[in-house]
């Protein structure tokens, strides 16, 4: 080869400098902390996986951009027409469409992420069976497309806010630094989705029923979360019960930071964060322990 001269020099000196790391493969399972460190070393492949997932979703659709907007928007327009116009559900003084749009963007971020994370092991089957990478990458990367969808919903929210400002002189959107709590709420939604996904993705490998029942569960979960109705519509004595649903606090925080109506949802948020973190940590531990047995069955 023509390049063998300089090439040889580089690799010869390189070889001397590189310390060849010692490794062990054992049946003993890797602890969660060690796994987290390993995950960090592999973090770059997260981007490749995520972009792959996003591409898969929209490639070979002729109306790629159209679906990007239509998929989330159409159901929201329809639902808010039914719930807001026909049923006249109260929305804390905010136009129902805007109210429902904010609530369901946060909810959809969660819902789409749970569904994607649940299928993640199955979906990356080809790669998982052939090359090694921390399997935690699969569920985490799988939530990327829902993030894109979420970003679009945020854009829509701003447009709708602009429309109300133009029409009524009031955008109904909060302007100020407290808006920064909205990304925190989105982060919590993703965290909770992953927490659930860590469990469901492993079970899904063995029991396809998981995916089927998940749709029902999410449907009920939506009704238990103040997306269609306002949190204030829940009778006082059921408030505590409602706050045991971790999504209540998350959705409330998101709506509060964007719309700025009502009080800071601290009472719902504390159990929400506690439950989310608990499921997340136990879920990650479970995934870490059960993943290799699941991969054998994949």
């Amino acid at each position, binding site marked *: *080869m023509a390049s063998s001269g300089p*090439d040889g020099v580089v690799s010869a000196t390189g*070889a001397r400098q590189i310390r060849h790391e*010692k490794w062990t*493969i*054992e049946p003993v399972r890797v602890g969660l902390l060690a796994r987290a460190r390993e995950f960090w070393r592999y973090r770059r*492949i997260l981007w*490749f996986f995520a972009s792959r997932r996003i591409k898969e979703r929209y490639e070979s659709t002729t109306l790629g951009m159209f679906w990007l907007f239509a998929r989330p928007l159409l159901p929201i327009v329809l639902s808010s027409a039914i719930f807001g116009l026909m049923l006249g559900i109260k929305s804390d003084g905010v136009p129902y469409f805007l109210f429902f749009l904010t609530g369901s963007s946060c909810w959809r971020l969660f819902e789409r992420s749970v569904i994607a994370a649940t299928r993640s092991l199955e979906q990356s089957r080809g790669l998982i069976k*052939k090359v090694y990478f921390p399997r935690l990458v699969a569920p985490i990367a799988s939530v990327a497309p829902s993030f894109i969808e979420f970003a679009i919903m945020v854009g829509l929210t701003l447009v709708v806010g602009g429309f109300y400002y133009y029409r009524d002189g009031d955008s109904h959107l909060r302007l100020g630094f407290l808006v920064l709590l909205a990304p925190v709420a989105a982060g919590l939604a993703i965290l909770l989705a992953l927490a659930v996904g860590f469990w469901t993705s492993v079970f899904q490998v063995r029991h396809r029923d998981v995916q089927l029942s998940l749709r029902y569960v999410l449907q009920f979960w939506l009704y238990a979360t103040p997306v269609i109705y306002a949190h204030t519509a829940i009778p006082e004595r059921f408030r505590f019960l409602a706050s045991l649903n971790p999504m209540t606090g998350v959705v409330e925080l998101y709506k509060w930071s964007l719309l700025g109506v009502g009080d800071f949802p601290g009472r719902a948020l504390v159990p929400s964060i506690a439950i989310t973190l608990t499921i997340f940590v136990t879920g990650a531990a479970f995934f870490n322990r059960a993943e*290799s047995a699941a991969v054998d069955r994949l």
Partner: protein
Amino acid sequence: MDSLVVEGLGKCYSLAGESEQTVQRSLWQRLRSPFGGRANVEKGRDFWALRDASFRVEPGTVLGVIGPNGAGKSTLLQILARVITPTTGRVVGQGRVVSLLELGAGFDPDLSARENILMNAAILGVTRSEAQRRIPEILAFAEVEQFEASPLKHYSSGMYLRLAFSVVINMNPRILLADEILAVGDAAFQERCQQKVAELAREGLTVLFVSHDMDAILRICNRVIWLHSGKVRREGDPEEVVDDYQNAIWSQHDIASSERGRRSNRFAEILAVRLVSATGKDLGGAPSSEDVFVKVRIRTTKSKLLLRCAMDLSTKGQLIFRATDEHVRELPEAGDYEALAKIPRNLLAEQPYVVNISCTFRRADETKEYPLVIYNALSFLAYATQAAGAPSSGRLQRLGFIAPQLEWIVQKEAGIGV
């Protein structure tokens, strides 16, 4: 200092049928031992793909791993590649492990060569800057510089293979895991691969090469281990081990218990199924420009038997054809027989194929038939031997299940018609 130490390595699969495994049952198991392995449940139905394998490899060794189908060769490689977790034992090694186990594994057909190199670098833990620096080298070795920006789905399988090899070999590996793939592809590239492997081995690269192709094993390995039923049966000098192995193959049953089907009945038994060349040598892959034979070895214990053989050839889960012997053969006396089915040259595409074998016996004085069937009796990769040219226009996946060479006639119309 050994570069790889394998101690008592084992992998156990539970053979409990997926269908029998109801939700209730496995939930119950989970409650009893929430995170426990499955090894302690359903003891009788466990299958050890690899059991108590121990060996050491010094740096610079090109270790051939041979053995019949189901002996645990791929399991061993998968464990070393960390794709599956062992049930027992441990492996201690040093340095980066790369694997070349399936054409295009870890490649994204929608990304360009350049992006795929970066992705593989990330998977192998190579820093981005180092990967960037190596890209020209990798493309040059694979001879795909002109196509660096086109998505891999437009590559021919030869280009795919060259790129795959070039990527893993240029990531400064200390251990390379390879299977038949190292011995396929066009002759010129094979030559360069083997030179490169030998060159890196001198610098301390350890290679584990799994193959059914004894010629390739003898050509590139300087040590060989022979796996049988998940255990190391012999290890040592290539010539000796390969000799022993080849003698043993034909004199015993080597169809692993993992394979489904019915292998023997009261008066006959299928001993072995092999892919062999016209000269009778064992093959690991089928060069598409040569005739190859599926050879079935049968032992009968009764005289006056009638036999009809058939084979199914499938790829990617699709049955391509079933070929049944047009004659019913008479096996006048008890003994060992061999049945050969010729797969003619220029028929197979560059695909992995799987062969099922069935031998239907009938006693001369009975009408009842006794079929023996072996599913997945043989799996092999067919490969083109001429150098691959420019990118094919379609996806790799659309190459077709077979690629027969047809006779074309192009002529000037005579005016009268044919």
